[in-house]
């Protein structure tokens, strides 16, 4: 439960920081007579599809954790079919989050180092604030990802724990890898 709250905070922070990531720089492009001609270039997170996916994935992960915390707080019992559903959803959540985080992380690496073979210039030396904020968002989401993995493991362990029933044997020993 505490894990879920922590993961929710981490992914929500990542979403917000990346969503508000925007930096505008004005460059002096040329001179016409005596007045310098400036062009303003903006770096927004929407410019990169990987970052857009990052924001969406983190938002969905936060939403999932929020729902789970809400159902815990409001006392909705997970019985029967719903308990494995929680573990499966947690797993899917972790997969989605890992995909989003890594896509954005490698895109950020490309922005920071460029790729000389493809003639892609690095943009971080011009847009340091954008890059820093993006880096913070990715770090926060990584923390959220690790926490989500922990949540998944806890959910699975909770599933496989033997139920305390008098007439049934412990079920943990019956689980075999087919």
């Amino acid at each position, binding site marked *: 439960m505490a894990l879920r709250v922590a993961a929710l905070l981490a992914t929500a922070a990542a979403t917000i920081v990346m969503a508000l990531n925007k930096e505008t720089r004005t460059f002096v492009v040329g001179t016409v007579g005596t007045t310098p001609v400036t062009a303003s*270039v*903006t*770096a*927004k997170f929407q*410019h*990169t*599809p*990987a970052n857009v*996916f990052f924001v969406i994935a983190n938002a969905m992960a936060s939403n999932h954790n929020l729902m789970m915390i809400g159902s815990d707080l409001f006392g909705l019992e997970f*019985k*029967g079919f719903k308990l*494995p559903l929680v*573990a*499966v959803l947690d*797993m*899917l959540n*972790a*997969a*989605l989050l*890992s*995909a*989003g*985080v*890594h*896509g*954005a*992380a*490698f*895109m950020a*690496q*490309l*922005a920071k180092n460029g*790729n000389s*073979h*493809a*003639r*892609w*210039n690095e*943009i971080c030396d011009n847009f340091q604030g954008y890059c820093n904020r993006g880096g913070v968002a990715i770090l926060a989401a990584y923390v959220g990802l690790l926490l989500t*993995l922990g949540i*998944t*493991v806890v959910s*699975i362990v909770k*599933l*496989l724990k033997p*139920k305390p*029933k008098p007439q*049934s044997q412990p*079920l943990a*020993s*019956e*689980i*075999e*890898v*087919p």
Partner: protein
Amino acid sequence: MAKIRKAVTVTLRLLALAATVVAVVIMATSKETAHVLNLTFTAKFTHTPAFKYYVVVEAIAGFYTVLALLLASKSLLSRLTLILDLVVAMLLTSSIAAALAIAQVGKQGNSHAGWLPICGQVPRYCDKLVVSLVAGFVAALVYLLLLVYTLRAALHPVFAIKP
């Protein structure tokens, strides 16, 4: 019941193994040289850290799949296999997402950053990359399916007793 479970899991693992091997081999052998305006321009997967990560992770996943196929049906290792399956599935999804992000930039460029698409100059390299990425995506999907199936199969005795 156990036989069907074993058959389905072995099939899924074999499929994942095939997909990861295809992904690794095709990406590792993809290389193309293009001549643009008297400049020789080589495209290799080692030029991009994301693709290097992708190849390494797919290789690890393939190796793990072989290991899991050989060590199947030992109750002592079942929990460990489940946890490792989860870890490998996460690694697979992460690697395919990273490779797809970079490949998307390579195909469509990014006008805001001044990055030109390179697929026009090295089309065969791009095609091989597409095949490799599709195989990697299939591997990730199959691993997620495997996880869900293993969980459900492990819970079947529980379903009969739970209220």
